[in-house]
């Protein structure tokens, strides 16, 4: 047993020894220990270094609010920085290292910053580093030079870059009552609601239920409070309608009573189970929330209050009562309230010597005097601690007579020898979640604390959260909250019997002792009381200015320790009461949340993969796949040794010479059905669809309401009231929503149903001079000659026993057919077509060849319909019906949309016969050194096998008027400049003779 560990007491398992390392040194602890309790038991006092001055720091607290003892936990190559040692449950093999120190924790060169203390005051950075106004360090250069070093000195732990192999998961939960916090109030609330049959979730951020019952030393219903808590939690566990979530921090209170919680499922385990997530992120939709989140003890602000060995009083009580660990042998206390006396007695019982209780209050109750007597502690009433002594560990303190009303110190300083100083500055209810839920807290003068606001969402407070610090009050509060959460009233309850020490919850309004030396308000960020006063002097007096100017409350504890003392010091400087200085509104998260958990629900991939029915065939047959949005599409089917360009040129060439086939299953497909379907299409397309005959298809263009081009595609009339609309792959979802919006909101009188059938159909486009012959060779049940299947005609038949629907339409400019069949037959039909095409030299082609042929043909896609172009810009004005209004028709002729300097679609031919680049610009006057006056840009480009030239589509000012003229491509990013000719966008077969056959 280590020197600071008692032989009995607490909830640690002394029979199980756990081995771990800290900064490379091996230690042992017991099951149930936190890293902090185990290190304290081993006599370790130095845990970390502060942010700015690199001051040595010990452990201040025993819980989630710890600002000082932050460590990095290593699991192999995977690092987890900035974890509070008070929240780490030790396990065999735990490896933790300290941070923000070089070369070591006890000898840190960064501590030199302490010498610059006065210069490094709040606002320091804003007032210097501007550098010279001229010369080589003008502008931002001097600052950036300095910043380089500042950045390296700043920061706490180091993040890892090795991928985290741990698993994170998300869970959606629904309940009648979510109880946050499992102290006596929360436990009873959960029990009351459970007994009423409600669905209850009880979340506790610590590993054990019970909260203060685990260390208060009180007796509830004739048993130690800790046993009572365990028994109550055990009773809850037996119910089907309760979910108990230990190690679960409820960190966010969002709209609609949606709460976010983080369950640390395996952080305390050496080896997680198979498939077991490290963290589980709970999104909980609760009908009612019971906030039983307890309270925080506040530090006092006095010189040297940050020295290792100075600790919150209740934290020491926890270490003694929960872990059987004494934080020191000779302990002094410094307090402004009664709660420290209980701590003194607990530590005395655990075996420490209580050398003094320094109390700022001149008058003490007899009860407190009695407790001090039991603790065999000297009482120094009307005194204050004015200094602490020691290096990296406390060796003593100095006290002086203190006048509470004036704050004045008097008399000689007396030295007290102690290795541990406990402080208590009163208690602040943990109102963070209530504040997040949307309302402002209210100051309670008696308790010197902000109390929870009136609920703006459906929550009920209980216990210390409400400022009810006594256990009996908390239990009554909790029961009422649990009952009213489920709308029950319940019968009067027999008061539980509670044995607890006396104490008045009202502290003296003392937050700071003004004496010589650095007094810390925000420990981690090294914000001192002087910094707060400097902020006041410079006019940064609102709470938010104070926070931002000094960084008070911006550390990882988010001000849990520093908010109220900081406000109090500012209030004093302003001569105003605390509530007039303002309150900070708390925002999520209550405490820091792993980013892994928040990304958990994606199950390894940010986006799902969307696959066509023929996907596996493409991959098996050498396709290089291309991510097009969520879809994967073949880019090329490369032969060995081929470059991408060689592959697509071969594919396009073969298609134009014989035939090619491409998977078009990704096109958006929407069933438009109903008696008003034709009328509806007339309204959404710029051109007419009511005149389309059954068994025919038509190319259509849609505009947005503002008159700009939106999407294009063919729509097939399968029956009088039955259309199959196709959209571009990229816009399928948007078009669907557009149609639904108009049907639901604007024209609810139209009887039309729209349904996404994209996935119902597999689509293959087969084109080229031999395409018809290939189809004829494998298609049964219909002919495909010009008479039976004219351009834009539709026929049905069978291929390899599978029903197919074929429309003769062309994107490539060749005679081509789109063959649709049920998606489950997609590969079957595709293989049959490929097989039938073999004698004809059919090739499979991918997106690159598809793009090449569409560029040659001058068709537009998303690169041209980019949300900024009009139908006229794209020379699609022939599609704008004058016979009827359509979406966008009223807006499309506004002055800006018909201006002569708009970018218009043209073709470009590289006159230097070198490849062009997408995104290159076009200029009239070439100036490689200082490119300027762009007249437009390339939207798509390729080597055209049909023309034997490098060509492009482009959007150019003046457009058509420039046909036949010369200009230059100007691509400074890729250093590609050269002459081009501007031509029509229809490079190939402009009269359509190939397509029409």
């Amino acid at each position, binding site marked *: 047993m280590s020197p600071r560990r008692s032989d009995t007491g607490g909830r640690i398992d002394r029979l199980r020894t756990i081995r771990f390392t800290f900064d490379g040194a091996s230690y042992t602890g017991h099951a149930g220990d936190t890293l902090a309790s185990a290190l304290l038991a081993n006599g370790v006092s130095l845990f970390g270094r502060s942010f700015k001055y690199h001051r040595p720091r010990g452990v201040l607290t025993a819980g989630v609010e710890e600002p000082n003892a932050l460590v990095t936990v290593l699991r192999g190559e995977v690092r987890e920085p900035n974890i509070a040692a008070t929240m780490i449950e030790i396990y065999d093999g735990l490896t933790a290292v300290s941070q923000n120190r070089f070369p070591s924790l006890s000898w840190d060169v960064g501590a030199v910053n302490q010498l610059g203390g006065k210069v490094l005051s709040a606002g320091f950075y804003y007032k210097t580093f501007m550098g010279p106004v001229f010369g080589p360090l003008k502008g931002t250069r001097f600052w950036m030079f300095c910043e380089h070093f500042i950045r390296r000195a700043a920061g706490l732990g180091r993040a890892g870059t090795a991928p985290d192999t741990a698993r994170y998961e998300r869970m959606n939960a629904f309940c009648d009552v979510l109880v946050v916090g499992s102290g006596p109030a929360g436990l009873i609330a959960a029990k009351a609601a459970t007994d009423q049959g409600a669905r209850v979730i009880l979340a506790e951020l610590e590993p054990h239920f019970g909260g203060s019952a685990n260390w208060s030393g009180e007796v509830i219903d004739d048993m130690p409070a800790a046993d009572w808590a365990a028994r109550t939690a055990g009773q809850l566990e037996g119910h089907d309608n309760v979910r108990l979530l230990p190690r679960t921090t409820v960190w966010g209170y969002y709209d609609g009573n949606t709460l976010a919680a983080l369950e640390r499922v395996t952080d305390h385990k050496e080896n997680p189970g198979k498939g077991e997530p490290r963290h589980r992120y709970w999104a909980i939709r609760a009908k009612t929330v019971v906030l039983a989140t307890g309270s925080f003890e506040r530090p006092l602000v006095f010189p040297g209050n940050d020295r290792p060995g100075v600790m919150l009083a209740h934290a020491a009580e926890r270490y003694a009562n929960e872990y059987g660990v004494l934080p020191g042998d000779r302990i002094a206390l410094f307090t402004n309230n009664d709660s420290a006396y209980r701590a003194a007695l607990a530590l005395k019982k655990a075996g420490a010597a209580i050398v003094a209780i320094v109390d700022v209050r001149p008058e003490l109750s007899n009860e407190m005097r009695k407790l001090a007597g039991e603790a065999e502690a000297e009482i120094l009433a009307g005194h204050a601690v004015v200094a602490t002594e020691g290096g990296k560990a406390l060796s003593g303190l100095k006290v002086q007579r203190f006048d509470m009303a004036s704050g004045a110190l008097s008399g000689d300083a007396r030295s007290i020898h102690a290795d541990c100083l406990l402080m208590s500055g009163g208690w602040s209810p943990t109102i963070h979640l209530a504040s997040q839920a949307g309302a402002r807290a209210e100051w309670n003068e008696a308790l010197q604390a902000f109390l929870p606001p009136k609920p703006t969402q459906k929550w009920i407070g209980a216990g210390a959260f409400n400022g009810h610090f006594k256990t009996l009050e908390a239990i009554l509060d909790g029961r009422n909250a649990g009952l009213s959460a489920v709308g029950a009233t319940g019968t009067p309850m027999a008061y539980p019997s509670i044995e607890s020490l006396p104490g008045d919850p009202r502290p003296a309004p003392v937050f700071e002792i003004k004496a010589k030396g650095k007094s810390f308000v925000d420990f981690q960020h090294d914000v001192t009381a002087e910094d707060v006063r400097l902020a006041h002097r410079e006019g940064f007096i609102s709470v938010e200015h104070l926070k931002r100017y000094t960084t008070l409350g911006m550390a990882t504890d988010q001000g849990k320790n520093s908010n109220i003392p900081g406000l109090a010091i500012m209030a004093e400087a302003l001569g105003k009461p605390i509530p007039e200085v303002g309150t900070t509104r708390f925002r999520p998260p209550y405490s820091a949340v792993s980013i892994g958990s928040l990304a958990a629900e994606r199950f390894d991939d940010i986006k799902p993969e969307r696959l066509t029915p023929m996907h596996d065939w493409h991959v098996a047959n050498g396709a290089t796949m291309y991510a097009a949005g969520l879809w994967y599409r073949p880019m090329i089917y490369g032969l060995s040794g081929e470059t991408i360009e060689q592959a697509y040129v071969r594919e396009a060439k073969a298609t134009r010479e014989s035939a090619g086939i491409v998977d078009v299953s990704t096109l958006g497909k929407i069933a438009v059905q109903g008696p008003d379907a034709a009328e509806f299409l007339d309204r959404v397309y710029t051109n007419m669809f009511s005149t389309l005959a059954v068994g025919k298809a038509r190319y259509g263009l849609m505009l947005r309401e503002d008159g700009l081009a939106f999407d294009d595609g063919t729509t097939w009339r399968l029956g009088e009231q039955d259309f199959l609309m196709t959209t571009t792959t990229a816009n399928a979802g948007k078009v669907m929503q557009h149609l639904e919006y108009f049907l639901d909101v604007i024209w609810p009188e139209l009887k039309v149903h729209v349904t996404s059938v994209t*996935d119902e159909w597999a689509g293959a486009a087969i084109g080229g001079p031999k395409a018809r012959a290939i189809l004829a060779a494998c298609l049964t049940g219909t002919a495909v000659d010009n008479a039976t299947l004219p351009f834009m005609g539709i026929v049905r038949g069978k291929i390899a026993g599978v029903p197919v629907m074929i429309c003769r339409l062309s994107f490539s400019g060749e005679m081509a057919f789109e063959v649709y069949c049920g998606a489950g037959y997609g590969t079957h039909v595709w293989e049959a077509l490929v097989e039938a095409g073999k004698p004809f030299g059919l090739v499979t082609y991918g997106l690159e060849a598809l793009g090449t042929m569409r560029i040659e043909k001058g068709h537009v896609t998303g690169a041209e319909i980019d949300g900024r172009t009009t139908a006229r810009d794209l020379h699609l004005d022939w599609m704008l019906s004058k016979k009827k209004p359509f979406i966008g028709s009223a807006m499309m002729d506004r002055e800006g949309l018909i201006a002569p300097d708009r970018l218009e679609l043209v073709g470009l031919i590289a006159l230097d016969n070198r490849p062009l680049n997408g995104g290159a610009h076009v200029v009239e006057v070439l100036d490689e050194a200082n490119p300027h006056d762009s007249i437009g840009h390339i939207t798509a480009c390729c080597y055209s096998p049909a023309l034997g030239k490098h060509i492009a589509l482009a959007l150019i000012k003046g457009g058509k008027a420039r046909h036949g003229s010369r200009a230059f491509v100007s691509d400074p990013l890729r250093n590609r400049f050269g002459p081009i000719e501007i031509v029509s966008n229809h490079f190939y077969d402009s009269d359509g003779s190939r397509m029409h056959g």
Partner: protein
Amino acid sequence: MVERQSPLEPVLQVGSHGNFEHGVDIILSETQPGSILQLAAWPGEEKKLISVIRTVTGLALPDGAGGGSTDGARSVFGFAPGKFTVVDEAEGLVSAFAGAVTPAIGTVTDLSHGRTAIRIAGPKAEWVLAKFFAIDFALPAFPVGAGRSTVHHDVFAQIQRTGADQFDVYVFRSFARSFWKALCHASEEVGYEVQ
């Protein structure tokens, strides 16, 4: 007849997986129904459509949004106002409805190929589905037979509860493989068997 290809084929690995040493709490399978139809009534014609559904399938729809029923071979549930999904083990259900749902009543849309049906069963079915969907799977909130439309990011899903511990999830075919993989992944911690 040519057999339909399942999008799950390469990833559906029959057997026990994950943390199954202490037994499996999840059974995953693809039900591969022959017919999946969407029936949609014009406003005011819902009752007629419900009666057509009963005539054709023998399944009576309970009142209320999202109501449904199943007899094992055939299932039906509402997923949107006036809209129903009807599923049959056998192919060809579309022709049975084609004549019965007259243009005055509504429309029939065949989605037999377009949706993939995944069955998740076992004591942890609610637990695993709750990882994906922000809806309440508890039995009182989601009774047997009922249907729900919901989404996990880009993956739309219609879910019918076909047993106390059993749900049939209909997803777009193109997303089915990705969703299946995620479902397997999410089932690992409780142990699962693929049938």
